[in-house]
């Protein structure tokens, strides 16, 4: 049930080991960088076209650092939404981070503030995906998280800057289907985690519910589907345990 017992902070690791972990993180996140390339360009060019100046446009990517939140903010600004509704929307749009925080709580709360703050700032969907224990053959380390998170951050800011520079002449990358890279990566991470009926049930529940709610354009579809899948998985685990089957 508790899959964090083998996770220890990196304090015991050698400097060389830390550096290796840092670069491993930086390399592992490259496919996810590729996936957000079109979004970064779009965030930059859309900011300029929404009337933000260059520094604000760059500031959005450098300070907010959340693609979906940035794009939704810009489209709400264009459509003349009021500030309060933007704030509420962004709060719920980024609420899946609460679950990431809870999941990583046991690992991160043991760390010093100087590591907790950057990990908190860098904690995107993509970094959370790589923090999953099954991805690495060894325990999660701070260096790995910072290496992956920082690479992703720099990539995001640089690509946004490129989008700002190109502004209206940003190329249409939709036909290159770069967003498939996120599917390839997340599926690669999820499939080895499915080792029990309960996990399979939870994943299928989340998948179907997320598809249905997204199609119905329900706000917070991903969080609702994720939490529902988690609860369904727990229910299935308890039911199968009661009926005498063993879950591995």
């Amino acid at each position, binding site marked *: 049930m508790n899959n964090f017992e083998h996770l220890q902070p990196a304090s015991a690791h050698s400097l060389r080991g830390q550096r290796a972990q840092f670069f491993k993180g930086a390399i592992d996140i490259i496919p996810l960088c590729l996936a957000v390339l079109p979004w970064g360009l779009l965030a930059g060019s859309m900011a300029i076209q929404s009337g933000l100046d260059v520094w604000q446009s760059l500031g959005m990517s450098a300070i907010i650092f959340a693609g979906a939140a940035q794009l939704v903010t810009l489209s709400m600004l264009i459509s003349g939404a009021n500030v309060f509704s933007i704030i509420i929307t962004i709060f719920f749009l980024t609420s899946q981070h609460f679950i990431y925080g809870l999941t990583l*709580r046991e690992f991160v709360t043991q760390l010093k503030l100087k590591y907790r703050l950057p990990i908190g700032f860098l904690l995107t969907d993509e970094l959370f995906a790589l923090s999953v224990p099954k991805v690495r053959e060894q325990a999660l380390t701070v260096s790995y998280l910072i290496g992956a998170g920082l690479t992703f951050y720099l990539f995001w800011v640089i690509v946004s800057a490129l989008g700002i520079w190109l502004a209206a002449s940003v190329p249409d990358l939709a036909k290159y289907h770069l967003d498939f890279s996120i599917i390839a990566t997340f599926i690669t991470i999820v499939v080895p985690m499915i080792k029990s009926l*309960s996990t399979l049930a939870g*994943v299928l529940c989340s998948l179907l519910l997320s598809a249905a709610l997204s199609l119905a354009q329900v706000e917070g579809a991903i969080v609702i589907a994720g939490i529902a899948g988690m609860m369904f998985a727990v229910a299935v*685990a308890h039911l199968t345990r009661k009926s005498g089957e063993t879950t591995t």
Partner: protein
Amino acid sequence: MSWWLLLLLAFIVFFNRYLFLEPRLPLRIPTLVREALSYSAPCLLIAICAPVILLDNGELRHFPDNPYLWGALVSVIIAYFVRHMLSAVVLSLLAFYLLNW
């Protein structure tokens, strides 16, 4: 857009990300919630994938002529047999672009 709105939004996003990483936040996670959290990664990651696979700008992609759907299924098969993450991702991408060729 004013700078204060930008900074406020940045604060909200950071607050959501950092809140539960703070050790001084008094929080005892009940066993049942802890058990649910052990499923958080597969459930949320797949929930993020679903709309990307099925929708294009809020509209349902064509079926069965949806390269994302077939690509995703091929990814599942590759991920099942290839357990080295980066190799599996690269193979999945190769398969996807070959399918689209």
